[in-house]
């Protein structure tokens, strides 16, 4: 393999941090969800990279990545439904205003 493992990990880390930043800083709930999708992809990259570089004979990494993608789909579906419901109820998707647990 021509590309060092570290590069992959660094890229995945960068993507994860971008997603994390999005989840932490976006005002819009859907924006937060987008950040989470990025983080999930970063994780998936890691899973596949570790499969490719460390245990190429075992399929665990790819299977896990598949499950993650499936779960991400369910998460996106449910999360977006929640956001839509919250928007209907409160007329906003600004996370700061969705503070029903507020003191």
């Amino acid at each position, binding site marked *: 393999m021509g590309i060092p493992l570290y590069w992959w990990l660094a890229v995945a880390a960068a993507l994860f941090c971008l997603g994390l930043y999005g989840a932490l800083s976006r005002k819009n709930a859907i924006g937060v969800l987008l950040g989470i999708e990025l983080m999930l992809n970063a994780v998936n990259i890691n899973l596949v990279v570790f499969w490719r570089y460390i245990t190429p004979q075992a399929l665990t990494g790819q299977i896990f990545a*598949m499950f993650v*993608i*499936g779960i991400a*789909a*369910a998460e*996106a*579906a449910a999360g*977006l*439904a929640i956001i*839509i419901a919250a928007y209907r109820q409160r007329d906003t998707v600004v996370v700061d205003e969705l503070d029903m647990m507020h003191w």
Partner: protein
Amino acid sequence: MLSEFAFVGVLIVFASLLPIAGLGFAWLVRPKKPNPIKKSTYECGLETIGGTWVQFRAQYYIFALMFVVFDVEAVFLLPWAVAYDQLPAYALIEAVIFIAILALALVYAWRKDALRWS
């Protein structure tokens, strides 16, 4: 391995370059004399009403949701279908259970009239 995807990469490059080249050429040769009628959305004369960013109906979302679910189902069933002749008999039962559970989802959506296009 990479060479197998090289064709895809070349295709993507060409598929991207062709419209860019066409649009760029048109951009170079077009006259630049805008007027209100020319800038209207529909030059046939119909006035647009309201903003362009209209709100979609939630039903679209439901359809997209159904699509996502069955997309995932298809993705998970594909390995099973490919490996079907190498798999033991019980794998069929597993797959049937898998399909049956998601069929339940379909039945539920149906019962809730989520599939009706109104």
